[in-house]
């Protein structure tokens, strides 16, 4: 099944014979709806009423992103929401069980960050002190999180997550060529090309995890670790934690070492404070992200190879099942070695 990204402003999407008909100037292309699984729409693309109606009726997931890559929204047609599942989700918020779930997700994130560092550490033969130290330090926290009898408080957990993230990006800094000017993670707005890539990628990931959460029957706004802050899809932020390093960082660290992108592929944001991806950079980055989403990894709970995009959905379903059964061992964070 195909993911369709519409990135070119000025594209008009209409419908012809059960296919999406894309037009821009003299360029024309048609895509059979039966083959499309997901449509991602960037600003400046126009969908006709007929196109929107067909997407809604056929249940093709359609996501809209902002210019800076943040999630704008999605088309929601008829959908099957299981009330007992939502009730179960509401019941575990602010409970020890909910914190236990949140803790597993954070553990997954830290382990995946660590395994990226470890990979680099092996490549450099353990000669980069920042890498070695970060790998060791994160191992201590991983062990601590695994051995706890009772879950930590939210503040404690946030503290650990923050320390690990800081060390992780500091260590990765040594692995990004100096020409990129990467001085650690910053955002809102991102102030250098690497941070622009990270932010944009997290936006795409958030959009996809959002739809995966809805597909799993969960309420995207009610989380466990990120809990109940208003106007924020807290559950989505929870579920995507372990996938940030696995999907986005993985691609970004690869891109900065390849000659694919260079400084002129980025542009200053309109307020002059941040850096945005240029048009070509968006397309190239999306292609790499999509390749990563399609790559197959072993998914231990089902003992088979699944595409990462499918693993997102399966992890959502596993969380939903755990909420219903109230058994923490029914959910394990997804980790790669």
């Amino acid at each position, binding site marked *: 099944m195909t993911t369709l990204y519409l*990135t070119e402003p000025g594209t008009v999407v209409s419908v012809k*014979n059960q296919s999406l008909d894309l037009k821009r100037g003299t360029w024309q292309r048609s895509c*059979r709806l039966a083959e499309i699984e997901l449509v991602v729409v960037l600003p400046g693309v126009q969908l006709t009423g007929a196109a929107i109606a067909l997407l809604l009726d056929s249940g093709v997931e359609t996501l809209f992103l902002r210019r800076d890559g943040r999630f704008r929204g999605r088309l929601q047609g008829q959908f099957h929401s299981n009330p007992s599942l939502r009730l179960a989700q509401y019941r575990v918020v602010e409970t020890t069980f909910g914190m236990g779930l949140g803790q597993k997700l954070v553990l997954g994130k830290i382990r995946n960050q660590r395994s990226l560092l470890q990979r680099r550490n092996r490549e450099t033969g353990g000669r980069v002190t920042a890498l070695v130290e970060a790998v060791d330090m994160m191992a201590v926290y991983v062990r601590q999180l695994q051995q706890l009898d009772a879950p930590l408080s939210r503040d404690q957990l946030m503290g650990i997550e923050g320390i690990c993230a800081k060390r992780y990006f500091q260590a990765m800094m040594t692995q990004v060529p100096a020409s990129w000017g990467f001085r650690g993670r910053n955002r809102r707005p991102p102030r250098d090309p690497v941070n622009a890539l990270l932010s944009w990628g997290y936006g795409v990931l958030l959009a996809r995890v959002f739809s995966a959460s809805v597909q799993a029957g969960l309420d995207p706004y009610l989380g466990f670790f990120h809990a109940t802050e208003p106007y924020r899809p807290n559950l989505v932020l929870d579920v995507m934690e372990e996938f940030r390093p696995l999907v986005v960082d993985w691609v970004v660290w690869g891109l900065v070492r390849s000659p694919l992108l260079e400084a002129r592929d980025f542009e200053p944001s309109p307020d002059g404070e941040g850096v945005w991806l240029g048009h070509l950079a968006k397309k190239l980055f999306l292609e790499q992200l*999509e*390749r990563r989403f399609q790559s197959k990894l072993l998914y231990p709970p089902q003992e088979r190879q699944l595409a990462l995009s499918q693993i997102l959905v399966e992890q959502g379903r596993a969380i939903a099942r755990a909420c219903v059964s109230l058994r923490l061992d029914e959910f394990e964070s997804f980790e790669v070695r």
Partner: protein
Amino acid sequence: MSQLWLVCYDVRDNKRRAKLAKLLEQRCERVQYSVFECPLEEKLLEKLLHQRWLVVLEIPEDSLRVYPLDARAKAKTRVFGSPPPYEPPDFLIF
């Protein structure tokens, strides 16, 4: 799991032919004027065949043939002057 089918037809009447072609194009890749390659699950093929495609035709005046192309047949298919057997793309970025 979806597999590839080769669909081809002989339809005498212009109107019926146009109608059938339009229906096939909703699901299949047109590879020659009256030859289509369809990535479909067998169950779905069965349904489309009997509920949509055959309904259009006058049989036996018209004929429709559907050949299965399993993975081996697909790999051994030889094509000249056009792209290899159809495979839906993983992603499209426009």
